[in-house]
């Protein structure tokens, strides 16, 4: 596919976006008919050109010219058909994105079944789809005012009878299989899944009694005022994973933060002299504690409840372990860092690197951080630019995604951090990054940006929305790639740019769309249109960093009217960070590991 094909399915949404979904759907309906007419015209003209070409006689010259002209008209109509098909596809994709943002699952399911018909989308559309299943929806009788609603009676069924836990889990499992295999994927899988995630969360929350919430999460809302159940369900799951991790993986007393080394004489110096590692003590107990009883799912309820109970056991019964809710700063506002004398293997030398003027270069850097190790890594870039008053500094904090699919092991980029980040509860990763920022000596006036892929993106959005961070630093921008960031609304001068491939189901794990978030932008795109392939000639996984890097590179190199807001964000980011021709950038990589001592 070409860049043009990729441009067909790009939707940038922000708080300023005004959409009229019924009007768009009516337009699509009319254009579908126009498309059929256009194809018929093309066929007729082809036949006409052939017949004109067979005319004979003395004055055949005129007939030949006529045949040629009809042939040219035919070619133009063929191009027009292609353009119109792309246009309809673009409108359809846009309407679905907007529909998902409105949060009306029934309407979304019906639109999807109409625009991207498949057995799955039909079944999801409503309870009475059986008679219509596998029929061509476009050919079914439609009304003029609401063409997408006519085939399904009872569009509000879903709201009146919420989906039961098992059904939602079943759908989520189907989407998980599609995500893993890539088979049966359609361009808005991710948007469909998010409704099922929210359904699962609602099932969980309807049957949960809270005993303790712990600290108030930053950026998310739990409890009766919440508009979404997913953060709260994530808090429950996080608490359970914490407890089970404690039991299965042993006690953890601290996070060890490996500082960048001193390096060679000609390399950029580390920040300040000090030990190779720092120790961040952890508190013992989970911050959330609740009881869940999901009807018909006693095993799952038991898993959650027992896990949370294990997480709340006092210190000593299961020795120490990682907490998800302690602060990086003590009551006096000092960073709670203690020098660590024990050895900690990975030490990175600070080194000068190319200044990431383009956001795609930042995403590229994420891929250089540790993958699949027993320890985690994040990178802090220090940008130094000569200004009128001397050197001026700005910073990029680069965070990689999940590396450990359990909880409580040595790598802090794990499921516990995932759940805590979606819940808005502080995690070991946020604590480690806060500590490293303090260690680097970032000044309150110096612009900071957070960048992350997957879990790294949620953590980036979480940190940028964190009160401690906002009070101590000047957060200029946030860039996330494939991250479920709904609910976070960082207030920054440039704004947050969320890249979401709508075939990637990870951004759907927040259970809702990103809406009404000030100057923050969400860029939806269909990653498959990039046609990226692995060295084995297989399609690149939808969540892969490469998809996001290439998409960002496309926005940088081939801006369009539709991506004008992305271009403006890029310019504002570079300006806020003061990045220029003469900027020098130094990379500092910190390592992280949970420790049992």
């Amino acid at each position, binding site marked *: 596919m070409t860049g043009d094909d990729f441009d067909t399915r790009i939707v940038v949404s*922000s708080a300023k976006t*005004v959409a009229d979904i019924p009007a768009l759907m009516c337009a699509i309906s009319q254009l579908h008919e*126009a498309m059929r007419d256009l194809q018929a*015209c093309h066929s007729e003209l082809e036949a006409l050109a052939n017949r004109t070409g067979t*005319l004979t006689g003395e004055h055949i010259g*005129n007939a030949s010219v006529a045949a040629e002209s*009809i042939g040219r008209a035919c070619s133009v109509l063929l191009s027009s058909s292609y353009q*119109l098909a792309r*246009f309809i596809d673009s409108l359809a994709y846009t309407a679905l994105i907007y529909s998902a943002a409105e949060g009306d699952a029934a309407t979304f399911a019906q639109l999807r079944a109409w625009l991207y018909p498949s057995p799955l989308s039909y079944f999801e559309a409503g309870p009475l789809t059986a008679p219509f299943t596998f029929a061509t929806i476009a050919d079914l009788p439609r009304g003029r005012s609401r063409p997408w609603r006519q085939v399904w009676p009872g569009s509000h069924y879903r709201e009146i009878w919420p989906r039961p836990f098992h059904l939602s889990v079943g759908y989520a499992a189907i989407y998980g299989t599609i995500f893993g295999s890539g088979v049966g994927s359609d361009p808005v899988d991710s948007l469909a899944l998010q409704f099922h995630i929210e359904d699962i969360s609602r099932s969980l929350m309807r049957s949960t009694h809270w005993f303790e919430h712990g600290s108030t999460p930053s950026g998310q809302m739990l409890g009766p005022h919440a508009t979404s159940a997913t953060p709260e369900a994530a808090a429950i799951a996080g608490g359970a994973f914490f407890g089970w991790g404690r039991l299965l993986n042993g006690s953890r007393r601290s996070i060890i933060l490996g500082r960048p080394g001193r390096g060679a004489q000609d390399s950029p110096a580390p920040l300040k002299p000090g030990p190779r590692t720092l120790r961040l003590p952890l508190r013992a107990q989970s911050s959330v504690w609740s009881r869940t009883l999901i009807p018909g799912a006693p095993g799952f309820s038991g898993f959650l409840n027992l896990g949370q109970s294990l997480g709340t056991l006092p210190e000593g019964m299961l020795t120490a372990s990682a907490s998800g809710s302690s602060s990086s700063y003590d009551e006096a506002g000092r960073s709670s860092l203690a020098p660590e004398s024990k050895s900690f293997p990975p030490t990175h030398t600070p080194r000068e690197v190319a200044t990431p003027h383009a956001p795609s270069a930042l995403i590229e850097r994420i891929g250089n951080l540790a993958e699949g190790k027993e320890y985690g890594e994040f990178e802090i870039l220090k940008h130094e630019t000569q200004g009128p008053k001397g050197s001026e500094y700005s910073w990029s904090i680069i965070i990689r995604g999940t590396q450990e699919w359990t909880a409580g092991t040595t790598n802090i980029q794990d499921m516990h951090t995932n759940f805590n980040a979606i819940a808005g509860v502080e995690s070991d990763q946020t604590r480690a990054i806060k500590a490293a920022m303090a260690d680097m000596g970032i000044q309150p006036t110096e612009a900071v940006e957070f960048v992350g892929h997957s879990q790294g993106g949620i953590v980036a959005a979480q940190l940028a929305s964190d009160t401690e961070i906002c009070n101590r630093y000047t957060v200029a921008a946030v860039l996330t790639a494939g991250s479920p960031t709904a609910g976070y609304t960082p207030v920054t001068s440039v704004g947050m740019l969320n890249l979401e491939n709508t075939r990637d189901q990870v951004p759907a794990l927040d259970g809702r769309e990103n809406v009404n978030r000030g100057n923050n932008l969400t860029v939806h795109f269909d990653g498959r249109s990039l046609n990226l392939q692995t060295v084995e000639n297989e399609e690149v996984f939808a969540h892969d960093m490469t998809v996001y890097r290439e998409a960002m590179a496309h926005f940088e190199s081939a801006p369009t009217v539709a991506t004008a*807001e992305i271009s403006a964000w890029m310019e504002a980011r570079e300006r806020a960070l003061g990045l220029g021709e003469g900027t020098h950038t130094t990379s500092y990589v910190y390592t992280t590991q949970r420790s049992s001592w």
Partner: protein
Amino acid sequence: MLNVQLEEVNELLALLAQTQARISSIETTLVLCSFGLWEGPAAQEAQESRRQMVMYMNHAQEHLATARAHLDDYRSDLHTAALAFF
């Protein structure tokens, strides 16, 4: 023979006129279909795409008008030849 040719040309001209009318109707649909209150860069891009498609279809119509003019000439020539024959 000339009569047969004249009938054939007349039929082709009628079909051509019919197709031109259908394309005009498609153009009208394109121009008039409303996007409602949709605003923002994506809406601007959609309007621009629509304008380009209408422009393309106008090109097609121009080619068809040329074809029609030549077919008309061809018919006139046939007609003249038929008159001369009789």
